[in-house]
């Protein structure tokens, strides 16, 4: 117990007395993890925005009038409920003939002569359909066309295809960037801590000389790496979070692009990044130490000939 207390105290004292090297290591963790976390946030923004672009009406089904062999309004509403139950469909909005005329009037409000020439009875009622997954539009269009009550089906097929591809590419790039920066972060952190231990290799050999076991030497170094990793990672999460909050405030005046990232996202990835920083610190310490521990051991192989 007293030994554990000593090792913890040892780590804390070392952190204080090697302030400059410790600051360097914490900064390395902070900067590299900030970049990686920033890339991840960027990717999340892309994902949220490409999802947002996909919202809205994807397919419009115009309906036959009852006079032309279509259903009456009650029948049309019943059919709507049926379509809404399809797996591919997220929601259906019913636009009756009166609403269609109202929409038409608003659309051409600056051309009254056009409005006058159109008889409200000519405009058909319609379903405005939003899909759960835009890639499924072909199937939905096919099924709607087969219905006798449906006059005509329009979809934004080509645009949907393009948008879908763009989303995939952007998300892939964002994730790739985060991954590359994440890997560089581990290498940078491990290397920085390794260098810090290199500067203290003489200490390791002295400790061995006095009869310290490998674990007795390792534990304070591990704790130092752990604290440096946690400190750097914590700072980077905090910095990126503050930056994202500012971005949300700044971006609130810009239409179409969404800048809001859920706190859940920050919580989940924040914890993961803390773990990441801590692991990198510990692994860096272990790697850095192993060589000097072995060097100071002078012959793990007794009686070698």
């Amino acid at each position, binding site marked *: 117990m007293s030994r554990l207390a000593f090792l913890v105290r040892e780590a804390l004292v070392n952190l204080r007395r090697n302030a400059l090297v410790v600051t360097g290591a914490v900064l390395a963790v902070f900067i590299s993890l900030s970049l990686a976390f920033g890339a991840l946030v960027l990717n999340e923004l892309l994902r949220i925005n490409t999802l947002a672009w996909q919202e809205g009406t994807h397919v419009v089904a115009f309906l036959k009038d009852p006079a032309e062999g279509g259903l009456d309004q009650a029948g049309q509403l019943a059919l709507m409920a049926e379509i809404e139950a399809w797996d591919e469909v997220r929601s259906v909005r019913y636009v009756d003939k009166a609403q269609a005329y109202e929409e038409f009037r608003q659309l051409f409000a600056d051309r009254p002569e056009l409005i006058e020439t159109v008889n409200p009875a000519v405009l058909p009622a319609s379903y405005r359909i939003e899909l759960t997954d835009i890639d499924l539009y072909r199937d939905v269009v096919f099924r709607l066309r087969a219905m006798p009550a449906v006059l005509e089906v329009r979809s934004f097929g080509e645009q949907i295809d393009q948008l879908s591809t763009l989303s995939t590419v952007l998300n892939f790039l964002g994730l790739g960037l985060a991954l590359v920066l994440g890997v560089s972060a581990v290498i940078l952190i491990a290397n920085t801590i390794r260098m810090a231990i290199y500067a203290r290799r003489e200490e390791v050999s002295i400790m061995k000389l*006095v*009869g310290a076991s490998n674990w007795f030497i390792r534990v304070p170094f591990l704790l130092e790496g752990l604290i440096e990793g946690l400190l750097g990672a914590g700072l980077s999460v905090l910095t990126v979070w503050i930056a994202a909050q500012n971005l949300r405030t700044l971006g609130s005046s810009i239409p179409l692009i969404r800048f809001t990232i859920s706190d859940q996202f920050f919580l989940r990835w924040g914890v993961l990044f803390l773990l990441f920083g801590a692991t990198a610190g510990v692994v860096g310490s272990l790697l850095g130490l192993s060589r000097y521990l072995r060097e100071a051991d002078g012959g793990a192989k007794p009686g070698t000939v």
Partner: protein
Amino acid sequence: MIRLEDVTKVYEGGVVAVRDISLDIQRGEFVFLVGPSGSGKSTLIRLMLRQEPVTRGTIWVAGKDITKLPAWKVPYLRRSIGTVFQDFKLLPNKTVFENVAFALEVLGRPRSVIRPHVTQVLELVGLADKADRYPRQLSGGEQQRVSIARAFVNRPPILLADEPTGNLDPATSVGIMRLLDRINRTGTTVVMATHDHAIVDAMQRRVVALSEGRILRDDATGRYEAVLRGAPAPTEKGAEEQA
């Protein structure tokens, strides 16, 4: 206490540092290992500490064959041997007190035991008033006394010293030798490698003279140079001083 039997050490690259040396050191003895640079003094010390493995032969320390000691038991060997080196080997980020205390922390002693022991041994070496200084704030002689305090604080049966006065002026060296002598009088076996003629001649203790990895001479109360006729030629250093 320490027994070497046909010990040979060949370093990587084929340099033979020690050739077929056999040596028996009794409990409580004070033994000088003398000889020019490269004669094998330091290698013998390193072998006794298991800082290097032997190439051939056997070394017993306190009745144990240390050449067959598994790596995880090496720390236990070193806790029973105090060490003093020419370059002091103090931890630069620790105070005098912490440096000495470290040897007891390694043993897992509670703080309540460590404090009085360290204070006592610092008084013995005359540095009680400098307990809170860092090594860089001390003179060479003072640093060496800290390292002797650390080597002695857990009362090890053996103390190995490799050129402990090598970096010190003659007056300071005398002080260090007095300390080592005092420690020896408490029953600790002391083995000291040196090429300081004055010290060896003044102390009148057992002298083992080495040359090119072999034992030239082993006198119970010897001088640095052989006084008998027909003895081997003077060492390099000796020749310089005679000129």
